[in-house]
């Protein structure tokens, strides 16, 4: 009887609704925009679609900042895949076991 109860419990545990949000319609919508790539100096990639954008970081820290133009984006219209060619999609990194000594505590000075 215990075994049967335990099996019921395990079955429920394995089939209970996952808290991780399941695939959303947004994803399938977004997938249609991923039709191409264009590398920038950053190694980032852009895709073409209804409202394709390219974005380049403005590196002049300390300069004045202003939001210009229409910045609102419809959801799903401005997604850009970044670095797809450099990441290892579907293949987790191998564990690094090399012993490395840490540097000193971080400081900006």
């Amino acid at each position, binding site marked *: *009887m215990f075994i049967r109860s*335990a099996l*019921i419990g395990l079955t429920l*545990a394995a089939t209970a609704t996952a808290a991780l*949000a399941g695939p959303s319609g947004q994803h399938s919508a977004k997938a249609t925009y991923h039709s191409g790539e264009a590398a920038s100096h950053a190694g980032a990639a852009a895709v*073409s679609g209804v409202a394709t954008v390219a974005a380049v970081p403005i590196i002049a820290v300390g300069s004045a900042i202003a*939001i210009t133009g229409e910045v609102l984006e*419809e*959801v799903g219209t401005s997604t850009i895949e970044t670095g797809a060619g450099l990441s290892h999609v579907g293949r987790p990194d191998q564990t690094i076991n090399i012993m490395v000594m840490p540097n000193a505590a*971080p400081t900006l000075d």
Partner: protein
Amino acid sequence: MTRFLKYVAVALALTLPSFATAGSQEAAAHTLPQVEVKTYATKLERDLAQRGAHVAIVARVGRDRSTLPAGIEYTHVAYWVYSQITRADGTQHKGYRVYNLYQQADDGTVSRLVQDSPAEFFAGAYTLDAGVIVPDPKLQKKLLGVIASPTYAKLHNAGYSVLANPRTTDFQNCTEHTLDILVASLYGTADKAQIKANITAHFDPQPIKIGGFKRLLAPAKSAALTTSDHGSRIETATFSSIARFMAAYDLSDQIYRFTPKGAQSF
């Protein structure tokens, strides 16, 4: 007795999902009016611009906080980068772009790097309550150097785990990638072993309390819930632990919450 055991089994099954932190999904089901989301995202953009932030670390809440494990306030973290943005029609404007590591929808064990807009970042938020870290300007410059280089993608590990151990390279989630980029920027290195050594030495991750039974059964529910990269203690990178790390080493300029009412202190 049998009935009791069945109740116990059901109770255990129902408690299993509670430590899944909604990960870094690109856009879960929209629970908030999207007009409200867009207005809020723009308000945060303007707030960051007023503060002169070229880069900021921003976190969102993707689930009801009451369902999150103790110590976890936010479910997704990303860099917001002030950028020159060009549209398909050639028009240009300046604003923030969000550099995300998103969990794949069709395979929760895999992630990808995606840039999107502030409105898209909050599209799947459960509530409009962001955590914001504006790094010290010196650090912003270092961060931008890394984000705009191949190192940003090089430090991505597509093997996704909700509770990835930030001290190891086995798995990674959005917060760990954010931390790896931060440490790479601080030490001027793209060497993963060196980055992990420095994280182990100087960064205190958030301990997560999970019962042994729940931990044992979680991977059966989703492989992304694996804790195989942890020892007996489960510790992961969170927005709050990154905020504590940056405050402890004087690396941040401002740390605050941002709600539709505006900026608030924690």
